[in-house]
């Protein structure tokens, strides 16, 4: 009997395993993704283009970009600050803070939306006061931005914490003994060390900000041309049986996903080749 490494399977077993994995991936990921494009283009390019340049579609795209343009930079700042705090300092309540950052992951997005509605809605805590001062948050753009902010909060911090944890505080301390100030240390030592992880986190944060449905749906009110984001716009079209238009809009989100994945793989390549080995 010939010897073979214990970790390798016989050929038939390998074929079956690979077929299972590829089959599963194809059935549940690639076929649906492909279907989006097929359905979108079923009635021709002009219908496809018309669906995308429709007044309401453009307004939804604008609102989605607007919400992301606010949520992503803010959460990048929050994420860096939180990761910095958690990895570079030891303090009471540190694990508690860590758990809190994960809260948006743990909580259903619908709940996240409802929380804002409870605070700022017409029947909510601040509702009467807001109505008095003629400030609209729920069923308006601020609500959508808030919901997006909440849901996308953990992405950057979650991406940075392991990276910064692994790198420790040695280099920062070295910079400190060499006379660098806090901002100099951050800009010249910490930031260059985390830049790829940071970019990755921002990318994921952005993908979620643009794709978020549940939380935004609760606070949006679905006012066409006003408070519909792209995912909500797709749902409205779908519910109105405008399948081609719905799928056309969906291609945008699908393309965003593909772009994010592509950039992510690229970053991982870089991260892999640049992660220096200590000692």
């Amino acid at each position, binding site marked *: 009997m010939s010897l073979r490494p214990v970790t390798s399977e016989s050929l038939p077993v390998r074929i079956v395993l690979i077929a299972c994995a590829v089959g599963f991936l194809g059935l549940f990921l690639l076929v649906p993704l492909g279907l989006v494009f097929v359905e979108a283009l079923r009635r021709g390019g002009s219908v496809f283009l018309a669906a995308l340049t429709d007044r309401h579609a453009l307004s939804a795209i604008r609102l989605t970009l607007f919400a992301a343009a606010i949520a992503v930079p803010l959460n990048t700042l929050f994420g860096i600050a939180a990761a910095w705090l958690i990895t570079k300092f030891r303090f009471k309540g540190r694990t508690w803070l860590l758990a809190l950052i994960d809260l948006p992951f743990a909580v259903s997005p619908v709940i996240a939306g409802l929380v804002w509605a409870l605070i700022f809605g017409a029947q909510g805590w601040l509702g009467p006061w807001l109505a008095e001062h003629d400030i609209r948050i729920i069923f308006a753009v601020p609500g959508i931005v808030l919901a997006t902010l909440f849901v996308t909060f953990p992405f950057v911090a979650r991406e940075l914490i392991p990276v910064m944890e692994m790198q420790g505080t040695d280099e920062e*301390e070295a910079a400190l*003994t060499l006379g660098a100030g806090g901002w100099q240390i951050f800009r010249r030592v910490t930031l*260059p060390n985390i830049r790829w992880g940071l970019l990755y986190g921002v990318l994921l944060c952005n993908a979620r900000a643009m794709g978020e449905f549940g939380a935004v749906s609760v606070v949006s009110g679905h006012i066409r041309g006003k408070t519909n984001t792209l995912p909500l716009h797709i749902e409205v079209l779908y519910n109105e049986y405008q399948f081609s238009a719905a799928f056309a809009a969906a291609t945008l989100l699908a393309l965003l996903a593909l772009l994010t994945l592509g950039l992510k793989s690229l970053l991982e390549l870089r991260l892999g080749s640049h992660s220096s080995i200590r000692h």
Partner: protein
Amino acid sequence: MSISIQHLTKSFGSYRALDDVSLDVPEGSLTALLGPSGSGKTTLLRILAGLEFADPGGARILFDGVDVAQIPAGDRGIGFVFQHYALFRHMSVAENIGFGLSVLPASQRPPRKEIRERALDLLKRVKLDGLQDRRPSELSGGQRQRVALARALAVQPKVLLLDEPFGALDAQVRKDLRRWLRQFHDEIGLTTLFVTHDQEEALELADQVVVMRHARIEQSGAPQEIYDQPRTSFVYEFLGEVNKLPGDRYIRPHEIELKFAADEGVDLTGRVHRLFVAGPIARMGILPDSPAFQEIEVWAPREQVREMALTDGDLVGLRFPTFPRLPLKS
């Protein structure tokens, strides 16, 4: 710069890392903080650097007579070399060395070109010329160590602090670098403190050895003084191989004289247990005939062992010429 540490105490929560430690380091000396892990030696070094802070109370740290407790790390005039070097991994060697100069306030900062020149100069002094454009990841451990040293020296510190400077290196590099550092210290005469858990390293390299244990200084003094006159059983045991005889008496393996069992003046007889002659001296364990004694480690010249034609199981006599000393306190 001379350093004076007075009544330093440091706690991490309920754990006491330093307990009322006082120590004087003369200007220009090379001092070793020696102790097992958890003895507080690294904490002491980090407090000197300003990376940790002593518990509030009567503690004072004087650099040339000036209390530095309120002075931030960057302004203390110290150069710190970290155990794992802590080189900036995204910078070249020259950028690493020049970092301390490049973060000076604009009014004191030398021009870019001069910073690089000073970096190249230092690189030459640590014998790494030509490596200025490498990344830290492209250097060997010993090279990184010297880059870290050059980086610390670039800010012209008045005290050099090294945390386990040879800890992460393999034996040969370690020896070379140790000698090199001693020579380097003699050339520049900078007051230097280094932390180590290796007694051989401390004894060979330092002018003053400070033995630490359980957050306190057990004994400090010149290497020979510490080795020859250990004040406690811990120092005795930590500074090299030692035999503990009944009644808390200690004697080092090389202080015991090896004789034939029938010779005159033999204090103890026993059987050779594991004879080991590969090395400059012969080492063996002696299983004493007297049940009051445990196995005794004896080092003798190889020549003598050959002349006596010793093998495992032979009966030999031991003589304690300097009769086993009692430690002053236990």
